[in-house]
């Protein structure tokens, strides 16, 4: 059963960045400003996690400073798409390209290295081994031996479920996306909600990136997010706003990514194994398209009605 433990443990590790980024993306989908720049925000998070870690010598310290930087970046991005009315899709694409280029540039100009930055000074987040449960087969791999960010991701799933039910802020976020005038005339602030969504998204993407660079490893390599940001966007879209679905889909993507790595060369050629996550995504897309409701809820528009 060792292979199963290894597979599940690896699956949980792959799931963490996808889930974190998708939870951030979900909030931007509520305000109808879907951020497709997760990949870019994540690679920045990965880079600065390592950079701040080198400076501070503490993994948790690096996380805190990276989060603050991400909040500022999210604020700027939010202002860009609201006050300056930049199309959010374009801004997201630019963020992806910018993230890929800027991290390479910074890597070379600050550290003078190409490809990867590995240093003994880079801290690594502790793996929390849970006693007793950690020794139980299957459950152990699933639950024990992960970083604090993995547990945080699942706590955030619970928090988000609770907030959807009981918080005013989620209501206002959704109203800001679905019918901004309704929120504005009820005394709410649409712009603040739209910016808040981006700040939240950037912070979670930063955590997702840091999990990859100083959580799973303790090094930074160029392009190390390798498309997981896009997988997270897909998970957020597939979930159609439902948090539990989002968690489930992120887990499926995480497990299939792990399968791509873990499957032995004797079972199938690695080129095929690595296709698994994408095949899963494609199948998911087809299933979603076939089960998608045509007759979505819509409000009557007085005077002129579109059909």
């Amino acid at each position, binding site marked *: 059963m060792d292979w199963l433990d290894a597979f599940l443990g690896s699956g949980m590790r792959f799931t963490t960045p996808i889930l974190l980024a998708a939870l951030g993306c979900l909030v931007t989908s509520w305000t109808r400003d879907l951020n497709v720049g997760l990949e870019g925000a994540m690679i920045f998070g990965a880079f600065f996690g390592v950079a701040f870690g080198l400076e501070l010598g503490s993994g948790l310290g690096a996380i805190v400073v990276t989060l603050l930087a991400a909040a500022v970046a999210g604020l700027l991005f939010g202002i860009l798409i609201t006050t300056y009315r930049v199309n959010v899709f374009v801004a997201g694409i630019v963020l992806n390209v910018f993230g890929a280029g800027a991290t390479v540039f910074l890597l070379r100009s600050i550290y003078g290295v190409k490809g990867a930055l590995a240093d003994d000074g880079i801290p690594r987040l502790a793996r929390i081994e849970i006693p007793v449960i950690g020794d139980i087969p299957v459950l152990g791999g699933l639950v024990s031996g992960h970083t604090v960010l993995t547990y945080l991701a699942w706590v955030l799933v619970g928090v988000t479920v609770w907030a959807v039910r009981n*918080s005013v802020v989620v209501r206002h976020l959704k109203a800001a996306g*679905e*019918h901004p005038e309704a929120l504005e005339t009820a*005394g709410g602030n649409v712009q603040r909600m739209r910016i808040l969504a981006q700040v939240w998204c950037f912070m979670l993407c930063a955590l997702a990136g840091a999990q990859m660079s100083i959580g799973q490893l303790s090094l930074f390599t160029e392009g190390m997010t390798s498309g997981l940001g896009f997988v997270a966007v897909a998970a957020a879209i597939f979930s159609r706003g439902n948090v539990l679905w989002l968690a489930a889909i992120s887990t499926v993507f995480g497990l299939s990514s792990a399968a791509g790595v873990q499957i032995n060369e004797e079972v199938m050629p690695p080129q095929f194994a690595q296709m698994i996550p994408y095949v899963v995504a494609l199948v998911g897309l087809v299933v979603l398209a076939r089960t998608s409701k045509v007759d979505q*809820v819509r*409000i*009557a528009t007085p005077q*002129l*009605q579109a*059909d």
Partner: protein
Amino acid sequence: MNETTRPDAPLLEASGITKRFGPVVANEDVHLDLRAGEVHALVGENGAGKTTLMRMLFGMYQPDAGVIRVRGEERQFRRPQDAIDAQIGMVHQHFMLVPTFTVAENITLGAEPGGPGLYSKDRAKEAIAEPMRRLGVDIDPEAVTGRLSVATQQKIEIVKVLYRGARVLILDEPTAVLTPQETTELFELLRRLAAEGSAIVFISHKLGEVFAVADRITVLRRGRTVGTYDAAATDAAEVVAAMTGRSDVNLGRVERVVPEEQPPVLLVDAVSTEKPGHDAALDQVSFTVRAGEILGIAGVEGNGQTALAEALVGTLALTGGSVSISGTDVGGLDVAARRDHGLGYVPEDRHHEGLPINGTVLEAIAPCEVRKRTGLGVLASALSAKVRTTATGLVREYDIKAAGVDAVCSTLSGGNQQKIVVARELEEQPACLVLAQPTRGVDLGAIEYLYGRIAEATARGCAVLLVSADLDEILRLSDRVLVMYRGRVVAEKQTLDTTREELGMHMMGATTGGAA
């Protein structure tokens, strides 16, 4: 209580209000005062500045000059919340309800019960029970708003305003989306609220409704206040004269020569369709329209009138029956072929189907010319000099108020947009013209003009099918009227022999022997 507050002062008073948008003056030196316990109608043509004025009273715009007083105390509304704090509430023409939210969530939006930052479903339910009781309505708090009928959504809007503690209620064209019965019901609710001491502002351009509900009437014309009248001491003619600046506007039946027995042009026989997403399915609908005749189709919206218009034009397929124009069966033909057989169509949804709303006047008029091209002509410039000449001529002939044929359609008033559509359709000299809600959002002057043009078309033999939710329109214009209910024709009347009340009964489903 502020010491400047006077109990005898008007609940809300606006004086000397001026608002400009760039070079356009939307309001100039406007006065309005509201007393507790009254329903105050604000009337005026489209573009007279009614909505602008109300948006200033609700803090959505800020006036350039003038003062707003609440119970004698001067107030400045920088945002809607300021107006809400001053106990002013607004029911917008386009509902401010989030479709996927529940009724309770929508009503409490912006003032959620349940403690700071929290929303409690149960406490929301309790909190909205009181305003619902005050209004005398009972709506399931957990129903999803977007699935409810338009009339129910409007009641939710009113409950929402009451929930926020409003003493002044502003309703922007609330009856535009309601049936006659729903309108009557709304008026009862408004009277009930006024009797409790609220002041109601009722914005409308339908004078029948204004006189049915209002105590006082303030008229705006071109952004200025013409005057405030006691409803009991004035009449429709005086108000129309104030609204339009003309004393000769005809609000009664449109005078035209009703032709003698003419041959039938449009023959509809036992037509049935599948159910389209937005309307009822047609079920064995039969009728004929003779040359020069106007046949009205009345009914509560959603009973198949839209489906009928679409089935005739060819955007909705028939599952049974036949349609023929001037003796040719067109049931299996596409829209273009039906137009070639003499069918004209003024669609219900002007912005989506009637004209390119972000295009120019020229582009809106051009299709009828361009469509007729054959052979190599299709490769020629679409907006040729010839098309431009035709368009310029039509703009002049139909008195379309636009900066020129290159003006963008969305900058025109509803009346001028509709004139473009009607001009384009009539220019083809159709044998049969289908009009769907032809005067929605069109001002009185333009309505009168359009009716005149339609009357002219019938004089030269055009058969007209008039689908309208506005009973007044049908009574003013049509010779015969059919009432539709659940996709069937339930009554057929000669317009001169029937009344609003009788038609209203048939609209609720009552059948007569006269039905086809």
